[in-house]
C-alpha cells in the first residue's frame, strides 16, 4: 500500500492585496492528497489558487485555515522539505552561477556531500542533455535550458516529492517528451510523488494519473484522467453497414440521441441497459456491430466546461469527494 506524501485538507487562504483593501480568497477549503509514485496534476485558470497551494506546502506562505502536510510532517517544518524538489514558475537561478556551481550550492543547502553532488549533477545534466553547458554561466542559457537546469536542481537530492510549476515552459517538444519520461521514471522506479501545476492540459493529460481542477479557490473536480474525460452516456456506434433511417427513427423513439458522424453514429443513452436495447434493435434488423466505445472528452473540454460552469460554488467530483 503506497503512502500518502502530500495531504491537503480544508486549506484556506485569504489575504489583502494592500492595507485597507478587501480580503481576497485564494483558497476556499481545498482537499487533495498524493500518494508516493503518483503523478498528480493541479489545474485551474489564472488566479484559481494553484500556486498558492504549492506555496503553502513549501511554507512560502501560510494558510488562513486548514492543514497541509508533506512527507507526514506539517508544511512549515523544515524537515518536511528534506526530500522535496521544487521547480517554481519563472524561477531565477542566480545568473552569475554556472550549472555546476548552482547544483553545488543548492545541493549543499539540501544537505548533500560533495561526492554525491558531483555524481548526481553529471548524471542529471546528461539525462537532461545540458551536460556540455555545465561550466557555462546561467545567463548564457536559453529559457528551455534554464528550465532543464531548474529541473536538475529539483531532482538533485533524489526527492520523494516533486512539486513542479510549469516544468516544460519554454522547452522544445523533444525536451518535453524527455522531461515527461524522466518524471514517469522517477515515479515508477523511485516512488516519487509528482505534483504538476500546469496550464498545458495536453501535457498534464500525457503525464498525470490523477488531477484536481481548481476554480475560484475550490476543487471543482478531481479524479483520474480517465474518469474525468469519460462521457458517461455517449457512445461511438459503428455498424458494419450504415443503418437506414427507419432504424435511426426507432432509436430516437426509444429516447436516445442520435447523431450521424462520418459513417458512424454518436448515441446518447440513458444507461447501459438502454444501450443494450439499441444494440438488440440493430441485430433484430439484421445489422452487425463493428465497434462500440464510450466517447471521451479531452481534458481541455473538461477544463473549459468546468471553468465556464455557471455556478461557481458547485463542485463536481468523480470519486465522490475530492480525494
Amino acid at each position, binding site marked *: 500500500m503506497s503512502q500518502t506524501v502530500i495531504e491537503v485538507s480544508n486549506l484556506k487562504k485569504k*489575504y489583502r492585496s494592500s492595507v485597507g483593501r478587501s480580503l481576497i480568497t485564494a483558497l476556499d477549503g481545498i482537499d487533495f492528497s498524493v500518494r508516493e509514485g503518483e503523478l498528480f496534476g493541479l489545474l485551474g485558470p489564472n488566479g484559481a489558487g494553484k500556486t498558492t497551494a504549492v*506555496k503553502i506546502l*513549501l*511554507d*512560502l*506562505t*501560510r494558510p488562513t485555515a486548514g492543514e497541509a502536510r508533506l512527507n507526514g510532517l506539517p508544511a512549515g517544518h*523544515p*524537515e*518536511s*522539505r*528534506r526530500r*522535496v*524538489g*521544487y521547480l*517554481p514558475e*519563472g*524561477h*531565477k*537561478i*542566480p545568473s*552569475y*552561477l554556472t550549472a555546476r*556551481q548552482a547544483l*553545488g*550550492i*543548492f545541493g*549543499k*543547502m*539540501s*544537505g*548533500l556531500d560533495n561526492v554525491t553532488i558531483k555524481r548526481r549533477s553529471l548524471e542529471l545534466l546528461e539525462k537532461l542533455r545540458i551536460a556540455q553547458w555545465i561550466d557555462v*554561466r546561467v545567463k548564457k542559457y536559453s529559457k528551455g535550458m534554464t528550465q532543464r537546469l531548474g529541473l536538475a*536542481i529539483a531532482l538533485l537530492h533524489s526527492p520523494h516529492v516533486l*512539486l513542479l510549476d510549469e516544468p516544460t515552459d519554454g522547452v522544445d517538444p523533444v525536451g518535453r517528451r524527455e522531461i515527461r519520461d524522466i518524471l514517469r521514471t522517477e515515479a515508477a522506479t523511485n516512488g516519487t510523488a509528482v505534483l504538476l501545476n500546469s496550464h498545458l492540459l495536453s501535457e498534464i493529460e500525457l503525464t498525470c494519473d490523477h488531477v484536481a481542477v481548481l476554480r475560484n479557490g475550490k476543487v471543482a473536480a478531481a479524479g483520474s484522467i480517465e474518469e474525468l474525460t469519460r462521457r458517461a452516456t455517449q457512445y461511438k456506434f459503428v455498424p458494419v453497414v450504415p443503418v437506414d433511417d427507419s432504424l435511426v427513427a426507432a432509436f430516437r423513439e426509444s429516447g436516445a440521441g442520435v447523431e450521424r458522424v462520418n459513417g458512424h453514429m454518436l448515441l446518447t443513452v440513458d444507461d447501459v441497459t438502454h444501450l443494450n436495447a439499441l444494440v438488440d434493435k440493430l441485430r433484430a434488423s439484421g445489422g452487425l456491430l463493428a465497434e462500440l466505445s464510450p466517447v471521451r472528452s479531452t481534458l481541455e473540454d473538461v477544463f473549459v466546461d468546468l471553468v465556464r460552469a455557471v455556478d461557481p460554488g458547485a463542485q463536481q467530483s468523480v470519486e465522490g469527494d475530492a480525494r
Partner: protein
Amino acid sequence: MKVLMANIEDVMREAAARWTLVAYFFLSTIFILIFASAINLDIVDGALAGAKLFGKQVEVSGTMSIEKLVMGFESGFSGVLYVLCTFLAIFATAHLVPRMQEKGTIDLYLSRPVSRVKLILSRYLAGLILAGSNVLYLIGSIWMIVAWKTHVLHPRFFLAGAIILFLIATLLAFAFLIGVVTSSTAVSIMATYGVFFFGVMLAGHARIEAALSKEWQAMGIKLLYWIMPKTAELATAVVGFVAGPQVNNEILKVTAAPFVSTAIFGFVCLALASWLFQRKEF
C-alpha cells in the same frame, strides 16, 4: 555548516561575478599603493631624522623615536580606515537580502530543508566574512608597509580592524533589517549610511539637548543617542585603542558604554530581521 558553506560560496561567487569583489579590493589596493608611495622616512640610528608625506617635508620636533611615529601614524590612519572600510563593506553587502528575496529566487532558497532564521544568519555571516576579508587586507597591507619601511611591528594596529569589523557587523544587521522589510538594495544602503551619520551627529547630543526648548524634545534626543550605534565614539575608540594606554589623552579614553549600546542595537536589528524574515510571506 553545509548551509553556511553554501552561502559563503554563493556570496563570494556573486561578488566575483558582479565585479563587486574586484572593485572592493581594487579600491582598497589603490588606497594601499597611494599610502605606500606617499610616505618616505629618513631613519638614522633608530631615530627619525626626517619624513616626507606626498613629497613634502614634514616638520619633526627634535628627535622623535620611530616607535612613537609609527604609533601616532597608525592611530591617526586607523580613523581614516574606519570610515573607508565601513562604507565599502556596506556598499558590497547591502544587496544580499534584497537579491535573495527576488521573486523566482527566494523560492529556490526557501524550498530547501533549512529554517529561515538559519538561512538569513548564514547569509549575514557570509557577508561579514566578505567584509572582514577586506578589512584584514587593508589593515594587514598597511601594517606590513609600515613594518617594511620602519622595521617597527606595532600589533595594536590590528585592534582597529576588530573595532571596524564590530561596527560593520552592527550596520550590516541594520542593512539586513531594511532589506527584509523593503527588498530594496538602494534603500538599505541609504538608510545604513544615514544611521552612520546620524550616530556621528548624536555624539553631540548634549549640545543639541541644551539648544532645545522643550524637555520632551531633549529626552527624545537623549533616547535616540542611547538607541543608535555610537559611530563617533567608536571612531575615537579605534584611535585610542591603536594609540594604547601610554597616550594620556582624555579624548581618547575608551569606555565600554559605546560598545555595549552599539552591540545591543546590532543584536536587536539582527533579531528583528530574522523574526520578520521568518514571518514574511512570499
